[in-house]
């Protein structure tokens, strides 16, 4: 593939993609294209298929119909070029590995089955640890770290893969404000390096303010484009149904406890930016 066609082609191309999860379609007829180097926030309620989309992109779930291309290649044929940071509850924090061990795993794709990490790999690991500001935690076990530090370990591992595409599954969930800002700063740096980033999130405020493109998803792709055109009252109602409440130009989304709207307790309300036209 020549450099010219790579630049011309979209980094991520989905055409009428349907992905099934346990026999049930979790994503239906999704069509969208993401340009190289773009940063896209994927927003939608629980069970909207955000994680399903990512798992299909990395080749963990089969695409039932339609075409899905990442840098002109089908999912699962990428090796190092896609890095995926899973949701924190998918990681076994009790596993006996140090921060250094985990970040080094990002290098395993470029190492053959019989090869041990070389000096060049250790340099990459050291650089990524530095970049995330966790070099001094190198020898600690991952289970001993705070939530924000743990997230940085997995971001460092993703960078150690030297990817073209970075997928972050719910990175703003379960971390404090400091970790959230650190992540946004990192994303700004990655923008300069031409790494395409897809982030799934519940946090519509961050999506609207810090991402140039947003996709609103609820099994189907409801809207995709600049945040102002995506977060309209009409689109939000369609995505969140009864969970969305509109108060004088503000959208309030009840994202806790699907189907229990109005039982009066335990609701996490997120206050959203002004609704567009």
């Amino acid at each position, binding site marked *: 593939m020549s450099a010219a066609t790579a630049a011309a082609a979209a980094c991520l191309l989905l055409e009428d993609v349907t992905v099934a999860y346990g026999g049930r379609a979790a994503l239906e007829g999704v069509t969208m294209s993401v340009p190289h180097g773009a940063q896209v926030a994927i927003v939608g309620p629980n069970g909207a298929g955000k994680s399903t989309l990512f798992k299909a992109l990395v080749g963990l779930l089969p695409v039932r119909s339609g075409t899905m291309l990442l840098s002109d290649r089908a999912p699962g044929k990428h090796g190092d070029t896609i890095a*995926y940071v*899973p949701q924190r509850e998918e990681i076994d924090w009790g596993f*006996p590995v*140090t921060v250094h061990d985990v970040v080094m795993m990002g290098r395993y794709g470029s*190492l053959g089955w019989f090869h041990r990490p070389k000096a060049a790999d250790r340099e990459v690991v050291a650089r990524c640890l530095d970049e995330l500001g966790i070099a001094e935690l190198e020898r600690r076990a991952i289970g001993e770290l705070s939530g924000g530090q743990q997230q940085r370990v997995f971001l460092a591992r993703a960078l150690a893969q030297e990817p073209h595409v970075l997928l972050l599954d719910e990175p703003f969930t379960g971390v404090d404000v400091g970790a959230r800002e650190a992540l946004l700063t990192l994303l700004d740096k990655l923008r300069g390096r031409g790494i395409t980033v897809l982030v799934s999130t519940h946090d519509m405020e961050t999506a609207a303010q810090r991402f140039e493109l947003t996709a609103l998803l609820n099994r189907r792709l409801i809207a995709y484009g600049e945040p102002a055109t995506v977060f309209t009252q009409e689109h939000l109602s369609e995505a969140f149904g009864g969970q969305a409440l509109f108060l004088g130009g503000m959208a309030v989304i009840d994202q806790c406890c699907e189907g229990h709207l109005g039982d009066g307790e335990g609701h996490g309300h997120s206050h959203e930016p002004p609704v567009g036209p």
Partner: protein
Amino acid sequence: MITWLTDPFTLQFMQRALLASLIVGVLCSVIGTFVVLRAMAFLGDALAHAILPGVAIAYLLGANLLIGALVAAILVAVGIGVFSRRGGLKEDTAIGILFAAALAFGVLLMSTVRSYATDLTHILFGNVLGVSVADLWLTGILAVIVLTVLIVFFKEFQLASFDPVLAHMLGKRPETLRFAMLILLALTIVVGLQTVGVGLVAAMLVTPAATAYLLTRRLAAMMAVSAVIGAASSVAGLYASYYLNVASGAAVVLIATAAFLLAYIFAPRRGLFARRALRRAA
């Protein structure tokens, strides 16, 4: 004191027993780290019992019991792999079915023989004092094969155990590795039969590794500590068996269990006291 320590090993069968115990202690404990980390304890137990029909058939044919066990273990490991992958069954269901069927088949075969008692009791409960030179060779060769595979592909097994998703993305075939681990586990169980027996081999796969888990923070260290605990328990169990005249397999497992309890209470980071102190500090 010195003679107390060396006395047992002036006897040749005790020398063989010592060597066999050490090999089994180290091997079970090392592969046991993966059994513990991947929550495969039930699988280990099932494999150990599923070996019975192979042993019974070998016994009926007058063949080497270990080879019968080896064939049965590999067949069961393959069966579990195939049923849980192709059949869409959860792995523990597939294990449960094969476990019960193999055990029943083994008992069925055994019940046709009148004089099976002694040899099969040894397979069930281990008879390290009866290890022959041929057994020792087979044990040694299998142990070298298993440990070599684990060391050469250490980073792949580590990655596939910790993060199968990344392993998949990096083209490290976590399914193949899981299958390979099943086969290695089957080989290990066969090796363990001689010394601790079917009934207790599962304990040697889990207990030293669980103890090491409490004491370490890296996989390689966990393997090393587990190996030391496994070897020490095996040797200590052998002394107990010699001087107290008790069953060696049971003694080995109980000593390993005592080590586990000590670690559970006193381990610096994950022990009972450490965790309590941490909670108080928080």
